[in-house]
């Protein structure tokens, strides 16, 4: 399997807080990587650092063989790095359709407003929002806005897709629906990195798990192995989870 993204000793600090400490990580093409860890572990910072929102203080990041350490956010987007936000970021006054059309329009060269809107319709249908196409984004429910984020990310034709807690705040039926979508995307060959707290989803979808704690990588490997790792149980999962898991498994 070939590597699509490589982080080499990447660090990022916010004045006194070391958010990422020398993280070295390779992500393979076609993989569905689960990024887990307690709140404040640096998961979102890692995504922000790769996407150029909060550039790394040291270390290098390469994407498809190209050095993107100092890249600007919009350039990262055009290269095929796309993401959804933990706190959804729609263009509130736009319709759902124009939200997705904007993503297609500005990330793809040679796209015009008309062709972008046509494409947007297909992406909305994929996430099941075609009925809401002409509804303003501000009026959508949280679950719909999460799916809208996904449609926007897909309109950018991502090579690597970061999903930042797409299931947070959703009920179980909605989670199931979102999980199905992620399975479909993975089947289409999109490399996915997902930040997720619902272990059920992580174990269901991910082919590999990386655990961050205080900005450091403390585990990396097969899901079944990682959740038994004592360091991970200590830092994140907790003894209760480990025991329940042991009795169930």
């Amino acid at each position: 399997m070939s590597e699509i993204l490589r982080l080499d000793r990447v660090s990022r600090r916010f004045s006194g807080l070391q958010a990422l400490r020398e993280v070295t990580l390779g992500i393979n093409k076609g993989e569905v990587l689960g990024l887990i860890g307690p709140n404040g572990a640096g998961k979102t910072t890692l995504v922000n650092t790769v996407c150029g929102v909060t550039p790394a203080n040291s270390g290098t990041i390469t994407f498809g063989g190209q050095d993107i350490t100092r890249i600007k956010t919009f350039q990262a987007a055009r290269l095929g790095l796309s993401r959804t936000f933990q706190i959804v970021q729609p263009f509130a006054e736009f319709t759902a359709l124009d939200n997705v059309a904007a993503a297609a329009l500005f990330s793809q060269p040679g796209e015009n407003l008309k062709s972008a809107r046509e494409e947007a319709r297909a992406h909305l249908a994929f996430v099941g929002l075609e009925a809401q196409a002409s509804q303003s984004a501000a009026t959508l429910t949280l679950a719909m806005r999460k799916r809208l984020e996904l449609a926007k990310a897909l309109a950018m034709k991502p090579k690597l897709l970061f999903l930042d807690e797409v299931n947070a705040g959703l009920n179980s039926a909605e989670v199931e629906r979102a999980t199905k979508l992620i399975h479909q995307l993975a089947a289409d060959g999109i490399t996915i990195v997902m930040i997720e707290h619902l272990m059920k989803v992580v174990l269901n979808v991910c082919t590999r798990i990386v655990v961050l704690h205080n900005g450091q990588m403390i585990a990396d490997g097969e899901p079944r192995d990682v959740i038994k790792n004592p360091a991970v149980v200590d830092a994140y999962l907790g003894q209760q989870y480990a025991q329940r898991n042991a009795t169930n498994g």
Partner: protein
Amino acid sequence: MKRANLALLIVLACVAALPLVGGAYALRLGTMACMYAILALSWNVVGGLAGYPSFATAAFFGFGAYVTGVLLNAGVPLTPSILAAFIGSFVLAGLLGAVLLRLRGHYFAIASLSLVGVLRELANNATDLTGGGMGLNIPLASGSSIMADALFFFYGMWGLLLATALMVIIVSASKLGFGLVCIRQNETAANMIGLNATLYKSIAFGLSACFVAAAGGLYAAWVHYIDPSDVFDILYSVKPIVMTLMGGLGSPLGAACGAFLYLVLEEVVWRNYIQIHSGVLGVLIVALLLLLPHGLVSLRFRNFWRKAKHV
């Protein structure tokens, strides 16, 4: 074309017929109205579409006035002088924009305001070039009557207004306009979908400056005398904003109608309440904004009819 834009062009066509019904006084007022409409429409690009509350209008107005004034004094004809102000201000605003537009909200407003002060002091101190505080006399175009002069500057300003309106209509229907509206709604998300926000904002700032500068240039040639406190007057920054708010934020039709309404109000109030005219005008503006918070364009005449039917 959208109906509001069509309505804007119709309004402009009506304004062009002004010389048929009015004398020199009406022409002077019409020229001012066109000038303020240019300022309001231009402000609408950066303030209405991109959502950056710029107070730099006066800076570019004065810049255009001085560039044109200095060139006219050097013997350059009017058209190339104004063209130089137009291009020069676009480049200047684009470059300044790349720096200033990193600030958001109130911070940007203050920074753009300071630009007016900086340029005014530069004009004040470059005595050899601009005449400093003594002002700058601009040669009269020889051999034309007062009425012909008034007509020339009215149609000059009107033509510039038409060009501004066309620019605004084209921009708001284009990818650029779409991107600016994205930036206004959520700049972080706009960057994240591959939109080069810095470039878009700089172009918007440039476009909002160049027609203002051209209007400043034409103004200088019209009044034959400019000084820093006149053309760098902060009211040139504030009035277009008030006009746009009165007309309807983000709407070209609203900006133009707001400018016309404002000037009519100002003139009527000034004539009737000479002693307390600013006070009366202020109260009127506040009342208008309270009663019509979304501006003139939010008026729907059809609704009046509907209500009447149900009575």
